[in-house]
């Protein structure tokens, strides 16, 4: 195949590339663009400002297509949507963390999608809390007095396992209403039991480093490894799909190797594939991952 840059074919791509990429001068004297609610802004430089504008409805005057485009580019940076997932509403808010030693509100952005309710913090990026909508049993508004003595409406969610979670939101009534409706849709006519749609629960899941082979030399990347009875996958939060997919039948061997890895001295393990290739991984708990992978490996008939 040969690449094309025929403008009629590539203009949309070019638009995304030029508006969304390219270097930005980190220079005080650049004309400020963040305040201008038009597409003619340096989107990359103004992306933080744009998120705020979206949240506070400052872009209502944008035409529908422009707004949708902006929303897509912001949301993509923010929340990793699943293949068939769509954002219903996003607004600033937070989650009350009550587990462990820390007890307190953690601010972020609340996303209601057609599948999940997620509280995401942008910097540093972390999903602070999330639930599948199918796991929400009820939602109600609950007044709470803040430290400053103001009365605020919070959202209290009761989950299928009986736990209660408290969320804050910029527009609590709106969000409560939307969640109620979204969940009503889920609870309504019960689906006949479907055999394949349930995703198999993993045997193990956790942070792992993967040494990705590249032409310019291998690179250690951080991401999430997932071990199921079907095999091992590893996915970076920066990629849409896993960069490593090893079916169980391909897991020929696993061993720890000496040396320094991104998770420290002695953190590196090598998985040998059935084809004889070595895949290098590193973990904070390499011993545990070796045991897990050993256990998942196809059993060789005793002879």
């Amino acid at each position, binding site marked *: 195949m040969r690449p094309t840059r025929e403008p009629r074919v590539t203009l949309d791509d070019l638009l995304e590339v*030029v508006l969304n990429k*390219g270097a930005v001068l980190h220079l005080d004297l650049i*004309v400020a663009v963040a305040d201008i609610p038009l597409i003619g802004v340096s989107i990359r430089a103004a992306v933080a400002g744009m998120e705020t504008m979206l949240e506070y409805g400052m872009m209502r005057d944008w035409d529908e297509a422009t707004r949708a485009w902006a929303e897509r580019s912001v949301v993509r940076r923010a929340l990793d949507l699943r293949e068939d997932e769509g954002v219903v509403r996003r607004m600033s808010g937070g989650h009350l963390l009550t587990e462990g030693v820390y007890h307190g509100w953690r601010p972020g952005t609340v996303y209601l999608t057609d599948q999940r309710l997620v509280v995401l913090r942008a910097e540093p990026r972390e999903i602070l809390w999330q639930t599948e909508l199918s796991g929400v049993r009820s939602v109600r508004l609950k007044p709470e007095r803040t430290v400053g003595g103001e009365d605020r409406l919070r959202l209290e969610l009761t989950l299928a396992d009986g736990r209660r979670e408290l969320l804050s939101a910029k527009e609590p009534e709106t969000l409560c209403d939307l969640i109620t409706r979204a969940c009503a849709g889920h609870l309504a*006519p019960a689906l006949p039991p479907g055999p394949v749609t349930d995703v198999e629960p993993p045997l193990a899941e956790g942070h792992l480093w993967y040494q990705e082979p*590249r032409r*310019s030399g291998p690179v250690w990347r951080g991401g999430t490894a997932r071990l199921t009875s079907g095999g091992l996958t590893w996915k970076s939060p920066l990629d849409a799909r896993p960069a490593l997919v090893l079916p169980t039948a391909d897991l020929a061997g696993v061993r720890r190797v000496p040396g320094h890895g991104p998770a420290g001295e002695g953190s590196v393990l090598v998985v040998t594939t059935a084809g004889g290739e070595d895949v290098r991984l590193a973990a904070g708990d390499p011993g545990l991952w070796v045991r897990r992978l050993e256990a998942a490996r196809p059993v060789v008939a005793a002879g």
Partner: protein
Amino acid sequence: MTEHSALYVYALLPDRQGAADGVTGLDGRPVRLAGVPGTGLAALVHDAAPAPFQGGDDEVRRWVAEQSRAVTTVWERVGGLLPMTFNVLVAADPESGRSAEQCLGDWIREEHDSITGRLEALSGRCELRVEITLDRAAVTGGDPVDGTPADDADGRSPGMRRLLAKQREQRERHTAGELADALHATIRRRLLAVAEDVRDRAFTRRTADETGVLSAALLVRHEDVDAVGAVLSEARAGRPGLGIRFLGPWPPYSFADSPQEEHAEPA
């Protein structure tokens, strides 16, 4: 502020005389190289009012095409540059009395090492874009999955039929998703054997019947463009239902900033 007290910046590049001759940018404005003495560097600019370009979708599309054309022309002449995003403007500094060109020059002098380093890393390389999708009908063969009596419409309410159809669609998505994961891992590895860097991008085109496999910008040496094409041809030949868009070569917009992966460390 005077009408043209600012500079619209298209790119940073090695100061090569004549590189911008005859090139026009936004609204047909002639662009020029603003050289920074002592650095060997220049900025591709034109004079502009100190206000961003704003307009409707069509106008922005035209501007982006014009910016791209100007940057690409100069890039092809010079061999390497750092492209800027849309609407990067440098204004004059009334406090110190410095003109926009002086401000930009001072900044380039300060950042000389990192700019030069990035230019060297990108020199002789281009950006290609690859979008690979999987036609779900080709994966499932269009046949209903076992146990789903799709045509057994009798005796079922319209609501139930709709639910069953939805279930079937979910199963198809799931099957296609698993296949896409495996294809993604394989193709990504093959591409990285010829490309020097890769950045995941959003899909610009995908229909409802397609599952996205891989959408990425690749940083590739000019002489390796054909090798990327060969990887894609092979992938397409091996899997019916695979749709591939292969775009470029463009200046390395997606790689103009320093490497993105915070945790990446050369092994």
